[in-house]
């Protein structure tokens, strides 16, 4: 028996366990959902969905206990710095829960209709959500990567969930192969970060890099060069997940091929998870590399990516006729807008990022919910023409869709406008001329976006119903879905007209980024 050379730190206490209570509950429910699926007869499988929703409600209640903890704005670390809880992690975990709950709710009828009602679908969504929630609380490279992979792997499976559907399989394969490639790149980057700094704790990495960037000594050569390589690799992995140009190619195919409910989920949940990871890496661990002497920092890199992303996304969306592909490109463009807030590096920018992700979640799931409701056997309801004359067929669905679309377009008096206002405004506010030029490019982009969003309004309200949709059967809108959609639409309008409450929430995120991350220390082991 080897003698213990190192004195072990004390075991994690009950206090630490309390911090991961939401995640523990979620794990239990996700596992139980799998078991429940086996136990239920075929005709009752949809009960798994309600079970999952109840689980998410419990998770939200457990998470609500942590809201008060963040009042001090200082992060609380648990499990020796492996996890830490700050304003950002609390707010974004709520976003994930909402995204998952909406996706589950909108899936029930759709899966019934496709005869694919199985409990594993809901379990996978819950596991993916679990991954996201750990991404938001991880303070360590290993934990970050593992939870990020949990999130991604669940989504790969979900994309290929329709086993008998060729497109679904193709999309899953494409997404999986490119996805693991980018994960491998990111992992290699993370290993380089560890190699240079000798730490896996984000706070310690940040501290060490800050030392190097400020001209600290290293035994051999300039460690910043190796860090640059690491940065590029990590960024490539992250940008892949948010589908930023030039890593966006997978998005239209995966969005189109995946079951529409999965597309809805992918476009908000895992995407928000990737933004959180991006924020953790760039604004925390690698924060000192924003701008460096003699070397391009990540701000410049990200700015180029942001401009390309929104421009390519918007221009490509113009020519699309498939709604899901169109929304894929629109979501690429939105990724570009959100990156702008990170590039600007101001409070206003971070507020914009948080605000926009929160409202985007409502608007995008809303749009998809209507498209799901249009779904028919035979008529997929994915072409823009299938929306023709929706107003005369189903006025309330058309009006709801219109509100979400106006929100995505960023028309004033919708929440989408406020988000864009913060994001674009933060560029001008930063006071750097080159960012002002980017703001102008962003504004021009918004004009292009208006064009293709207006196509939705045009199809629904201005065009006559197409002849070939012969069925007058009602839309697949369950009362619960209808109520959720109505509430989402009211929220989109309410936060467009009176955004202050949501800005206060976004400000919690911004504060936890600026006050804590700017110091880039203090999150060490305790």
């Amino acid at each position, binding site marked *: 028996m080897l003698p213990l050379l190192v004195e072990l730190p004390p075991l994690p206490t009950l206090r630490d366990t309390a911090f991961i209570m939401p995640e523990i509950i979620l794990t239990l429910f996700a596992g139980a959902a799998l078991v429940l699926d086996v136990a239920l007869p075929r005709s009752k499988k949809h009960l798994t969905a309600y079970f999952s929703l109840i689980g998410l409600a419990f998770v939200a209640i457990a998470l609500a206990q942590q809201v008060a903890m963040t009042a001090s704005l200082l992060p609380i670390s648990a499990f020796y710095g492996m996890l830490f809880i700050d304003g950002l992690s609390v707010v974004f975990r709520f976003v994930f829960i909402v995204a998952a709950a909406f996706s589950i709710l909108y899936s029930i009828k759709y899966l019934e209709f496709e005869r694919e009602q199985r409990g594993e679908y809901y379990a996978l969504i819950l596991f993916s959500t679990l991954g996201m929630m750990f991404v938001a609380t991880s303070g360590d490279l290993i934990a970050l990567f593992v939870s990020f992979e949990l999130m991604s792997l669940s989504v790969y499976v979900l994309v290929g969930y329709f086993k008998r559907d060729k497109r679904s399989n193709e999309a899953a394969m494409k997404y999986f192969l490119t996805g693991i490639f980018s994960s491998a790149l990111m992992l290699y980057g993370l290993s380089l970060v560890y190699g240079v700094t000798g730490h896996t704790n984000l706070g310690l990495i940040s501290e060490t890099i800050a030392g190097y960037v400020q001209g600290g000594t290293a035994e051999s050569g300039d460690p910043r060069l190796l860090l640059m390589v690491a940065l590029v690799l990590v960024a490539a992995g992250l940008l892949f997940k948010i589908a930023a140009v030039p890593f966006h190619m997978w998005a239209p195919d995966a969005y189109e091929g995946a079951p529409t409910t999965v597309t809805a989920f992918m476009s908000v949940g895992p995407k928000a998870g990737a933004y959180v990871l991006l924020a953790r890496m760039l604004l925390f661990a690698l924060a000192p590399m924003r701008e460096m002497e003699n070397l391009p920092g990540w701000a410049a890199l990200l700015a180029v990516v942001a401009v390309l992303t929104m421009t390519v996304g918007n221009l490509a969306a113009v020519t699309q006729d498939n709604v899901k592909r169109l929304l894929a490109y629109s979501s690429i463009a939105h990724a570009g807008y959100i990156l702008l807030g990170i590039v600007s590096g101001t409070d*206003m920018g971070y*507020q914009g990022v948080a605000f926009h992700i929160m409202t985007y979640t409502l608007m995008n799931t809303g749009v998809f919910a209507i498209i799901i409701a249009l779904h028919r056997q035979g008529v997929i309801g994915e072409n823009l023409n299938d929306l023709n004359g929706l107003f*005369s067929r189903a*006025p309330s669905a058309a009006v709801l869709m219109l509100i979400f679309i*106006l929100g995505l377009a960023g*028309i*004033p*008096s919708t929440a989408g*406008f*406020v988000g864009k*206002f913060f994001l*674009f*405004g933060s560029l*001008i*506010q930063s*006071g750097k001329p080159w960012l*002002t030029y980017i*703001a*102008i490019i962003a*504004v*021009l982009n*918004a*004009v292009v976006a*208006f*064009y293709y969003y*207006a196509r939705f*309004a*045009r199809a629904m*309200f*201005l*065009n006559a119903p197409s002849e070939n949709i012969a069925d007058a059967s009602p839309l697949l809108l369950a009362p619960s879905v209808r109520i959720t959609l109505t509430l989402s639409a009211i929220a989109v309008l309410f936060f467009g007209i*009176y*955004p*202050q409450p949501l*800005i*206060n929430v976004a*400000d919690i995120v911004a504060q936890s980024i600026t006050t804590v991350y700017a110091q880039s220390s203090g999150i060490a082991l305790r």
Partner: protein
Amino acid sequence: MLLDAGSLLVWLVALPLVGALALVVLTATSMELGRRYALTTALAAALLTFGLSLRLIARHADPALVVNAPWIPTLGVNWHLAADGLSLWLILLTTLLTPLAMLASAAIVTRRPAYFLLLLLFESGLVGVFLARDLVTFYVFWEVVLIPAYFLIGMWGGENRRAAVTKFFLYTVAGSLLMLAAIIGLYVGHGAATGRYTFDVETLVAARNVIPAETRQWCFWGFAAAFFVKIPLFPLHTWQADTYAEAPTPVAALLSGAMSKMGTYALVRFGVGLFPDIAREWATLMLTLAVVSILHGALAALAQTDLKRLLAYSSLSHLGFVTLGVFSFTTYGVEGAMFHMAAHGVTTAALFLLVAMLEARRKTTALADFGGLAGAMPRFAFLMVVASLASAGVPLTNGFIGEFLTLLGAFTVAPGFAVAAAGGMILSAVYLLTAARRTLFGCSASLFEAPDMDWRETLAVAPLVALMLVMGVAPQLFLRPTRPAVPPEAVAVSRS
């Protein structure tokens, strides 16, 4: 507190909105009930505005007529509304035209009262634009106006409405997004210089010199882009004729009567108010654009074979006079511009509503399809002739006063431009009277039998025609309340 002077302004914006919301709840109701309901709301709004204007006429700068409450404190955005002599006639115009347009919409048939709901939204947005004193508040209303306009034209318009409305939408949005960039530019420029981040117009006007000159230069063009598209001014006018022609005619009356005034009003209050020096620097270019608009509009109107397109180009020409007055930077010019905005709003709306009545009878607005109407429709003919004369600027009508004052203003600083613009006045007499002659008189009297205007139609137009004469005979009544509200920045040469 619900009925103090400040909340009166909020009610002015909110009343049509409340009406629209109620229509949402009542979607199942019949068209007729929806129409009656919307009309009641619009009339109530008109009464409210009328009460407000009496108060404003009595005391031109009523300090109580202000609402200023924090809206988005994080950014320094305030919910700031105020009424003064500049906004007075335009809110009255808007709230007057909306119920009249509703009255004249008998030919619009839909299954649901969405049409009236959109008209109410449109009214609310317009009133908001004319009252807003905070740049974000202003911008929000500015854009809100576009949405009902888009659907009103797109859903109830003519044959080519889809293409027209897309063009209209993209033009307007491009302009207003540039304005948004300029608004943020001003905000940041002012905040960086003074440490106080605000969108409040009065503060920004007072402290305009602390903002770096370069910033202000491009901000001015951002604002100008949005305003010139909306007015419209040559060369940004190409959406106008298509849009007016394809819009349902009562909506076209609102577009040209009220919506186009957004641009000219904002030009005086924000364009000239915030950037007087830059506006003056570019005055020659602006005067040129105004004169080109006047002449181009008039010449194009001469060539039109469709009544609605003719009126659209006539609008381009008339609003050129308003721009001419504004950029003359003289007391006469600016007062004339303010007067002419109201005058043109009344006249052009009346003409469009009259055309709507022809369209309801004959399903066409082509000039060639009419003739000899005077025999069958004497009441119609009388109103049409008076409105045409007013639009052509014949003395004792409102058109004369407006054009005379703007020309007078322009003449004192740039006689060449004034002479050229006066040519537009002559042309306007030619095309308007030709149009009136070809529809009302001529040989083909037997070609067209139609009932004369019923009481509802008469009620929609008669008040406007009466106003044309009142404004023409007693212009002082309308000029006096405006005078003290003209921003001092807008006047370089005052009346000696």
